[in-house]
């Protein structure tokens, strides 16, 4: 089937996305708190207005929903261009580049947790522990044995998966709150063990983890005069896209459907012949591989990790991203992650009260949006068939 290329649609989509892109740049540049608050209120107002008058805008939003390929394509091009444009646009350019890389790592973590918690209903309160296992594996291999990055990054995922397999034994025996406790205890166990073991550097952690290096290309070289974080930006972007792709493949296949039946009613799923223990394990371990790889990237990028980086507060941060974003809604999780990891950076102006406000938000949001900011949509099958019939 040959697609007709519609110039008007293409330019509308491109123009809107470029406009949003530059608005984000402006957002990065705003320093006054009041301008920021006013801007945010304006954005929320526009979104609420657009939702209220969905009808009037349907021909406009229809362009976006009908041509997802162009939407994603333009977005990808903009993300690829970001490091080239940002030095001319943003005052604290390197800082925001680092924040974006950090956000990318959080997106990988959140998508990993989303497969476990969102798709399958396996609550993992030890995200930070698996993140730390990935980071320490990569760090120790690179630092103590001098193993190249092309091996350490996948090893981070593999070792996290191995620990996940061990933890899965108590996990599939327990349910509900007891299951939550198993992962919680595991998270504390790992951090306390890292804290007290000399081999892993104790509370000081690992220092001087070498930078990434692929086929002689060191990630400390500055491509075309840009900051060396640009390398890490593209590297993380690649893994984020991979994670998104894997998540969508999971979600749209019969695997995602199997996992959803286990989440919604495990007994009924078992009655229908779903081997819930195996599928829960597969989803748990797949999530842990993603989390472990994110840890390995983080360790190489920052070059210094300590048990403090992987405390329970970090797990809670990721759990909040997934739950507030919307369980089992990949786009929602990504948006939730972006909001929760970029907004606090802007709130640095009120540094002192940042965590307090964060805590209060965690109390307030569940009251008003009990199923997250973007609740998941039930799967719609045969939508393409319906279109043909139209």
């Amino acid at each position, binding site marked *: 089937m040959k697609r007709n290329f519609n110039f008007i649609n293409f330019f509308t989509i491109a123009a809107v996305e470029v406009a949003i892109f530059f608005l984000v740049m402006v957002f990065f540049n705003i320093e006054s708190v009041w301008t920021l608050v006013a801007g945010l209120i304006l954005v929320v107002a526009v979104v609420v207005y657009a939702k209220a008058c969905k009808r009037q805008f349907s021909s406009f939003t229809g362009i976006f929903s009908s041509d997802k390929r162009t939407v994603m394509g333009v977005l990808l091009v903009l993300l690829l261009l970001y490091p080239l444009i940002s030095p001319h646009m943003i005052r604290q350019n390197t800082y925001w580049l680092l924040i974006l890389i950090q956000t990318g790592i959080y997106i990988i973590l959140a998508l990993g947790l989303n497969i476990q*918690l969102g798709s399958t209903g396996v*609550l993992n309160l030890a995200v930070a522990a698996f993140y730390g296992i990935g980071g320490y594996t990569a760090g120790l291999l690179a630092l103590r044995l001098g193993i190249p990055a092309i091996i350490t990054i996948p090893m981070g995922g593999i070792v996290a998966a191995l620990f996940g397999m061990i*933890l899965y*034994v*108590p996990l599939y*025996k*327990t*349910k*509900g*709150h*007891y299951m*939550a*406790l*198993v992962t*919680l*205890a*595991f998270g*504390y*166990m790992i951090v*306390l*063990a890292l804290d*007290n073991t000399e081999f892993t550097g104790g509370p000081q952690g690992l220092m001087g983890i070498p930078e990434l290096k692929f086929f002689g290309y060191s990630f400390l070289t500055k491509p075309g005069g840009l900051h060396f974080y640009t390398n890490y930006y593209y590297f993380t972007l690649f893994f984020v896209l991979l994670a998104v792709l894997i998540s969508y493949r999971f979600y749209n296949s019969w695997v995602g459907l199997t996992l959803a039946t286990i989440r919604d009613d495990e*007994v009924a799923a078992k*009655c229908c012949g779903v081997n819930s223990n195996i599928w829960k394990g597969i989803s748990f371990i797949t999530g842990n591989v993603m989390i472990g790889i994110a840890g390995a990237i983080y360790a190489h990028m920052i070059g210094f990790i300590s048990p403090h980086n992987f405390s*329970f507060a970090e797990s*809670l941060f990721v*759990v*909040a991203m997934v*739950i*507030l974003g919307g*369980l089992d809604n990949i786009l929602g999780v990504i948006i939730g992650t972006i909001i929760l990891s970029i907004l606090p950076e802007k709130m640095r102006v009120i540094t*002192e*009260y940042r*965590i*307090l406000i*964060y*805590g*209060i*938000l*965690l*109390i307030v949001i*569940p*009251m008003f949006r*009990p*199923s997250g900011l973007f609740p998941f949509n039930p799967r719609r099958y045969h939508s393409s068939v319906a279109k043909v019939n139209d």
Partner: protein
Amino acid sequence: MGTEAVIVQIILNGLMLGVQYALIAVGFTLFFGVLDVINFSHGDVFMLGAFIGLILINIFSKLGMMTGGASYVFVLFLIFSLCMLVTGLVGILFERIAVKPVSSGPPLMALLATLGLAIAIREAVRLFYPMGSESKRFPELLNPIFAGTSHAFEIEGVLIRYDNLLIFGIGIAVIVFTSLYINKTKMGLGIRAVAQDSEAAMMMGVHRDRVVDVTFLIGSALAGLTGILNGLFYNTVVFNMGAMGAVIGFSAAVIGGLGNIYGAIIGGFVFAMTQALSAAFIPRGSEYMDVIAFGVLIVFLVFKPSGILGEKMHERV
């Protein structure tokens, strides 16, 4: 002092901690009973109790009432009960604003909201208590009581301090008193009824909201008392001690079986004993005692997935 004496000493310390863990775990298990919510902010209510105790001690010493003498024990009693009362009322406040509104929603959201509440309490103490981010010295309140004595006695090389004995005694007394209250009074009957089936209890004329309030009053008051006892035991309190308190209290409640008050008490002692025994018998155990205790907890749940006294979970079909 021989090694056996050291081991006995460590185990006695474990008992001292066990009574504190049990007091926190009772709160977790009571809240789970009436609202079906794991209230993670309970650990920070425990921390808040320690700071409320500290404030009360400061007020009373400003008033010149902490000078010793015959009335000293009475003043101490007053501080303990005031602290329990204030913490209990604060507990009701937290329940009203943050715990009950989310308890009817999805359990994950409730978990998140109570975790958010925990963060908010912790940060509020850090920001608004004078020099709140540093650890605070907790005055040794109990020493003046034993002013004339040698503060400790020795059996076979094992040193037993009178003040620790008193901490243990107070803890046990309060636990006994609480279990009597739950089992023998009308309100206790209401709490048990709501825990078993809240709708049926309401049909029988139990005022559910009042029962929930009383439960949070009791649970938070126990946590407040534990805060003071913990301060007296370690002589120092710090704003982030609630996080560990919550995890250990929750663990103890789960070991015993959620919803069962005796289970929570047993669980508290089991957890403390695991820590103490691993510190006593395993080389470098004192560094790894928490790691081992959590490891034992995980392995334990493999074999007994619903705790020691927990009800066997039924699979619905």
